[in-house]
């Protein structure tokens, strides 16, 4: 009974982390879908979201219900600008140029923003705008932070699902991820839809940044690196380019990480994720929901 309760508790903690990974992984997978690019700067957009929320809450006393939309709008703008400035000029360049540029954008954001006059290279306490309280449900305890994370993630997944499967923009994104040339022949403004995809993905990463700050209230300009890599692995695990794959992948990665640190050793928490990546690439490189393919 005690073990069951402990396992359930860790599962809840794992899902909390996994929900944040899922929000970040969605951006990776959507951008990959339309541009065949691993946007390495995506983890930094997540970081930017956390910092934006930090400034809104602790410096400008913005009420919490406004922190969400403002932060998401700010990161959406950042995602839009990154695409316009760094990636769009390379539309017809070889893919490797785009990939290297993405790494460059990531490093630029991290080191430029770690200037003392900007975000600084230090760890900063993230102020929660509310007290953390736990609700004892006999078998496990769930906190209000976790409830917020689950609710906000579920709501945004629902909205994203409706956007992608029931609107003309979603249809255009799916068409684009399939065949850019034919999509343009259908009258779809390709550049506009690519921008739109970055905007949506970056808004979700910004949301992830806020929630991450609530759950793990220490932020730093380099905080996007590991969650970024892990979310990317989550997207690969689910099948890159597949929306529900990114969600499931994120949850699996989050739960694995928490379970390994709870039951084996917390020093292995990062290692296990790379081990998962290793297994995916070895056994089914196209991911859980991906088609079986012979070549990698």
């Amino acid at each position, binding site marked *: 009974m005690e073990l069951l309760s402990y396992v359930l508790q860790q599962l809840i903690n794992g899902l909390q982390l996994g929900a944040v990974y899922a929000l970040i992984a969605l951006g990776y997978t959507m951008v990959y879908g339309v541009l065949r690019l691993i946007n390495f700067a995506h983890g930094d957009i997540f970081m930017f979201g956390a910092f934006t929320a930090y400034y809104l809450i602790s410096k400008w006393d913005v009420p919490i219900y406004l922190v969400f939309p403002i932060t998401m709008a700010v990161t959406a703008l950042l995602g839009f600008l990154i695409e316009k400035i760094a990636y769009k000029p390379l539309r017809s360049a070889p893919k490797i140029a785009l990939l290297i540029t993405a790494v460059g954008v990531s490093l630029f954001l991290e080191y430029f923003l770690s200037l003392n006059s900007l975000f600084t290279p230090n760890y900063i306490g993230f102020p929660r705008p509310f007290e953390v309280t736990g609700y004892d449900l006999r078998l496990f305890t769930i906190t209000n932070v976790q409830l917020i994370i689950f609710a906000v993630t579920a709501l945004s997944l629902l909205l994203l699902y409706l956007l992608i499967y029931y609107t*003309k923009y979603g*249809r*255009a994104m*799916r*068409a684009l991820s*399939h*065949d850019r*040339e*034919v*999509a*343009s*022949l*259908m*009258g*779809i*403004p*390709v550049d506009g839809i690519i921008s739109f995809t970055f905007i949506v993905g970056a808004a979700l990463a910004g949301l992830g940044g806020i929630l991450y700050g609530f759950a793990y209230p220490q932020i730093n300009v380099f905080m996007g690196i590991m969650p970024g890599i892990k979310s990317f692995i989550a997207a690969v695990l689910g099948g890159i380019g597949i929306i529900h794959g990114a969600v499931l992948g994120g949850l699996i990665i989050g739960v694995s990480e928490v379970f390994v640190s709870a039951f084996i050793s917390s020093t292995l928490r990062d290692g296990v994720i790379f081990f998962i990546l290793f297994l995916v690439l070895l056994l089914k490189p196209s991911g859980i929901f991906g088609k079986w393919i012979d070549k990698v």
Partner: protein
Amino acid sequence: MLMRISHLYVRYGSVRALHGVSLEVNEGEILSIIGANGAGKTTLLKTISGLLRPESGDIDYRGRNITGERPDRLVRMGICTVPEGRRVFPNLSVKENLELGAYTVSRRRLRQQLFDLTLHTFPKLKERLSQDAGTLSGGEQQMLAVGRALMGNPQLLLLDEPSMGLSPIITKEIFSLIRSINAEKGISVILVEQNAHIALEHSHRTYVLETGRVVMEGLSDVVKQDPAVIEAYLGCESLE
């Protein structure tokens, strides 16, 4: 005149594929462009649809210079394409494919009219609306590709190798449907075809391309009597 193309030079990769092609499209006609593999037919069509930018030369459409215009803008002007090899979206349903074709049509009423017209023209698609396009046969996919282009409310329809990979019977069916679309709706058509026989049979006028140049043009009925054309393009097919 619907479209006038003058002195078009186009590169495809590192090779120049078109060397000063000029042609005219009249309102309401079916124009076919025939030629051997590598003659520049697809390059020409891709340039008209905006996928390729010419090095030099002009394309005028309804008295407006549209050279180098983006494909999605051209669709808004009524130039819709049925790409080579059909290229329907296999993971999307037949209905979603058709709806994508009407991406630029914002008026709901018109969209519904186009949808009804398309299903009226291709009744076979009606039973398959909720099916994934990838599960259709080759002929049905070609019908979907044409239907998808019709959904964009075209004034000029560009068809790239509509007979490719289809049986002679299905090919004939597709071509007679194209003719009825042209006759009933007054939609002008440019079709590029490797199968010269069927292209000459189903078009009003024909241009013959050879290594990126127009070598002959005229009424299809006249072109198909030409000894050189028979020798080069129809000889083998008459054996079938």
